[in-house]
């Protein structure tokens, strides 16, 4: 008999999902007009009906945010603001399991990741920025940095609560108020966060949460009452936003797509490199803007690395995201599955060789087996376009110089990984790479103290650390 792991499902009883949600405006839940369903992508079960914010709701939210900004939040001392942020952080920790279960149900990501990565990191962002709230004048941003005003924040579906934390925590620490729109397919943890704001007795209007689709996002971006737009999402939408704010006084930060190179030199620690490749592309089903989606292998170790990578991929556990032993969960939406499938088919058509380990994908829900393409060249679409799914393109290089040239030969520049046991090579390579985040002998590691953001078409500005804070303050240089 072999060691089969019996199902180990996390309990769903921890969360109560309402049949219908409204918006969170001025500290209260306000009933919505039109609604649309949010589903569990692992089962296609409808979880709840979500309100679609139109012009009236956006106006009301911006008005509430402005009022809170002028009457309360911008006048409050940093020390007092910090107390609210600490309180929010603690409540998020206390309710961490509830958040994790809700995130997994709505997003499709494995409970192990929402439990061990998303939620703890989200709380960490609030703790970190709480510490900044009363120290802004010591952040090297001038003697008396001032908040921008009302921030409109539009976040993606891949790390719903974590992206909320990346946006809301620095904005609030710096003294801004926010109107935030979670992604259409993953609004539930943002709505639970609204409850946390109430529980923390955050002054009304400091955080406003509007649910909706792209049309709601456009209303926020184009609203004249908003001082700053922070967006995380596709490069395509990022460009639309950049055009929309071009003739206004709005500040803007954009965190967009990527096609990161994970570069393996021949002196890499092979077993840990294989783990890093797996983590780089299969973490969160590859729905990661900084995913290591282009594997660049030095040719003299390519065969060995690929052999070990395939063996390791056979151990990946794909399936029920609520099972504690699941490594790869469901694709977030049907639309995304179609996109991944289309690009993978393009890989086949262009002559790359596709390989996936045998795995039984559930009949219902949206699934895509972990996949690698070998024999990929710079000219393949799957080497250039962001797939945003569990699909890895494998390329080779002959010399370190060639590896760097290939890594930089992309319109994107969000992240990169370097695998080598030689310190001098790692330092040299990191100086040559044009990417905002570079990992050495690791991948997809995040920390609130570390700025995150891209070069080129991967975005404008940074989030996290002192650099991220500066994007929510006036009178200081923006990167």
């Amino acid at each position: 008999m072999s060691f089969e792991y019996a199902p180990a499902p996390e309990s769903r009883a921890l969360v109560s999902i309402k049949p219908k949600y409204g918006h969170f405006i001025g500290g209260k839940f306000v009933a919505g007009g039109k609604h649309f369903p949010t589903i569990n992508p692992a089962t296609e079960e409808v979880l709840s009906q979500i309100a679609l914010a139109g012009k009236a709701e956006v106006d009301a939210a911006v008005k509430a945010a402005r009022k809170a900004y002028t009457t309360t939040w911008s006048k409050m001392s940093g020390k007092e603001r910090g107390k609210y942020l600490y309180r929010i952080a603690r409540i998020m920790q206390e309710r961490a399991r509830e958040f994790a279960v809700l995130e997994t149900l709505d997003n499709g990501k494995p409970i192990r990741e929402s439990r061990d990565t998303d939620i703890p990191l989200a709380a960490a962002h609030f703790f970190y920025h709480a510490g900044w709230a009363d120290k802004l004048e010591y952040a090297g941003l001038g003697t008396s940095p001032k908040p921008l005003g009302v921030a409109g924040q539009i976040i993606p579906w891949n790390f719903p609560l974590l992206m909320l934390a990346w946006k809301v925590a620095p904005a609030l620490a710096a003294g801004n108020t926010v109107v935030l729109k979670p992604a259409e397919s993953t609004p539930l943890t943002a709505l639970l966060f609204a409850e946390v704001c109430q529980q923390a007795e955050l002054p009304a209007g400091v955080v406003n949460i509007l649910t909706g689709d792209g049309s709601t996002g456009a209303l926020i971006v184009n609203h004249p009452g908003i001082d700053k737009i922070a967006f995380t999402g596709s490069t395509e939408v990022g460009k639309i936003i950049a055009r929309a704010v071009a003739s206004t006084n709005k500040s803007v930060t954009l965190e967009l797509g990527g096609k990161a190179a994970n570069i393996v030199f021949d002196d890499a620690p092979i077993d840990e490199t294989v783990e890093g490749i797996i983590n780089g592309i299969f973490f969160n089903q590859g729905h990661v803007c900084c995913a290591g989606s282009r594997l660049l292998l030095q040719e003299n170790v390519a065969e060995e690395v690929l052999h070990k990578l395939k063996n390791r991929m056979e151990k990946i556990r794909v399936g029920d995201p609520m099972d504690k032993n699941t490594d790869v969960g469901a694709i977030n939406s049907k639309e995304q599955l179609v996109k991944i499938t289309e690009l993978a088919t393009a890989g086949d058509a262009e002559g790359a060789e596709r390989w996936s380990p045998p795995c039984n994908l559930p009949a219902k829900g949206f699934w895509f087996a972990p996949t690698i393409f070998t024999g990929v060249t710079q000219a393949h679409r799957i080497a250039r376009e962001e797939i945003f799914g569990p699909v890895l393109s494998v390329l080779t290089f002959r010399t370190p110089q060639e590896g760097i040239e290939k890594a930089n030969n992309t319109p994107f520049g969000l992240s990169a990984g370097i695998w080598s046991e030689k310190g001098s090579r790692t330092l040299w390579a990191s100086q040559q790479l044009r990417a905002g985040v570079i990992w050495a002998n690791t991948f997809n590691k995040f920390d609130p103290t570390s700025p995150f953001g891209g070069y080129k078409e991967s975005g404008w500005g940074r989030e996290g650390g002192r650099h991220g804070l500066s994007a929510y303050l006036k009178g200081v240089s923006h990167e």
Partner: protein
Amino acid sequence: MSFYGLVDGGDASLKSYLNNLSGVDQVGAEARAAMLATRSIKTSSKRWAIDTAITMVDLTTLEGADTPGKVKALCTKAVRPDPTDSTVPSVGAVCVYNDMVSVARTHLDLIGGQHVPVAAVSTAFPSGRASMVVKIQDTQDAIDAGAAEIDMVIDRGAFLAGRYIDVFNEIVQIRQVCGDKAHLKVIFETGELVTYDNVRKASFLAMAAGADFIKTSTGKVAPAATAPVVLVMLEAVRDFYEMTNARIGVKPAGGIRNTKDAIKQLVLVNETVGPDWLNPKLFRIGASALLNDLLMQRMKMDEGYYSSPQYVTMD
């Protein structure tokens, strides 16, 4: 000897073989081990894991105060770990000092435990600080007294000084003494080798020299069988199998005290080298206190509550 065609028995070829091994990234190895420790093993798979772990226990007593009475009691427990439940399997082996081998073998045979082998620690265990003549005699004595498994220690001083060939030659000589009478387990004392690079190097060195098993620790030094150390050794065993087709066993020893720890070890095996190694022929756990926790967890699964230690035998 052929050494699997990997080395020629000389210093230069051994050095080149060891220096060509890829390094181990400490952070990455520890992260992988920590991730595998989150596996949640429940119900039927937990039950299977507990019984499998029992068959893998090398039930050990290695004290200056060991007496024939103590060793006989241990042997009785090894054969029938739970006297009230005959479905509990026997353990993998009884592990004792050299001078207790004959006591253990005689008693096991007397009580119907012919199937339970006796393992003897050897080569001036635990420090390894003795001449080769003494180490060979130590091993020969144990085999003559009926030991079917020899747990030798390597000369850590030689290893840390870079005299790999001396370590290699000692293993080769003890391997010759064992012949086909005894399985050879080679103990690294990973708590003294410290780095994962050293653990990987020692693993490949011992396997090429003819070890049947590679073993983490003596149990006398902490840290002992940490999850990342066992992971690195399992990866070495897996790679060695791909190179040579030879299946080498792994024995973590020291620090594995409860069922949860033991199950984590089985998960490491399952997801690193694969289910073929989930077998007492290829995986053992050196322990003394562990067995009782396995028995108590087994009772808990049957009866629904965690009983008092008074319901399992003390040795």
